[in-house]
């Protein structure tokens, strides 16, 4: 798990759960997407909205999973496949949460623009906005990112620096949306 907490945060926090041996099972794709969409049999009380980029979200959730798996056919390197899915969580800061709440800004629009950041790099992504819970004290966005690039067929490699840079971009997206809404 790569966490970027070196400097004081005014913006939200992005956490990448790509630890050793995490999500190395092919069933991880289905598990993560259904977890985010709350289609895993658990209550949907904390789900605000969900969607996808690079895969259909309005069809059956199993279809979305198959669309992720389809892209993984492009990866043909010998040896272990490694991670099948990447799970990242963006947790809004208190300041961001207050401004979004006061301005009645659409969380769905913000999450979609954040997902666009992953998609622009060539990765399918399924996202879901959840209310605060036991593990996260603020509203947060889950991203399930396909580890195979649909344009190149290569695997995704993100280090701490990449995660930090993406966090900065996501912070800017949130701030831009808040500023645009207020102006």
């Amino acid at each position, binding site marked *: 798990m790569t966490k970027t907490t070196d400097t004081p945060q005014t913006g939200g926090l992005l956490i990448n759960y790509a630890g050793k041996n995490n999500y190395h099972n092919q069933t991880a794709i289905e598990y993560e997407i259904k977890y985010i969409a709350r289609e895993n049999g658990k209550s949907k009380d904390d789900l605000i909205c969900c*969607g*996808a*980029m*690079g*895969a*259909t*979200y*309005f069809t059956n959730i199993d279809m979305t999973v198959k*669309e992720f798996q*389809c*892209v993984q*056919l*492009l990866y*043909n*390197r*010998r040896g272990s496949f490694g991670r099948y899915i990447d799970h990242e969580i963006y947790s809004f800061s208190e300041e961001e949460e207050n401004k979004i709440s006061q301005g009645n800004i659409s969380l769905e629009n913000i999450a979609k623009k954040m997902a666009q950041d992953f*998609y622009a790099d060539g990765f*399918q992504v399924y996202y879901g906005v959840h209310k605060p819970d036991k593990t996260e004290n603020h509203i947060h966005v889950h991203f399930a990112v396909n580890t195979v690039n*649909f*344009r190149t067929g290569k695997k995704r490699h993100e280090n701490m620096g990449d995660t930090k840079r993406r966090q900065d971009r996501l912070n800017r997206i949130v701030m831009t949306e808040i500023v645009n809404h207020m102006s």
Partner: protein
Amino acid sequence: MKRYSNKDNHKKIKSYNTFHKNIKDSEIKIRVSKEQKKELQRKAKECGMTLSSYMLTPHTKNMIELLRLIPQTVELWDTLNGLYHSVETAASALLTEFELQNNALNTYIQKNNQYPGGFCDDKNN
């Protein structure tokens, strides 16, 4: 000298086989023409595979062409998402407009109704 029982040997063989289940200790031999061999080697190279890996992977006739369509297919799925969202938004807007007009119509009818509520009984009139 320690002697292992048959039971111990069985356990060792079982764990050995589980650990080394990918040991390639069998082979398949087929006779092909030189042209066929070159063609297979070319196709394997195109897919970035060795000849053995390529032949062990199940293929359809147009597998390579199908795989090449994946980037466009992914973009098409994303376009479909956008279309669905537009239709959903437009439908919601139309429905809201319909409800507003329906409410306005009902209000007008109630205001101008000569017989507010109940049945119009011809016998009494």
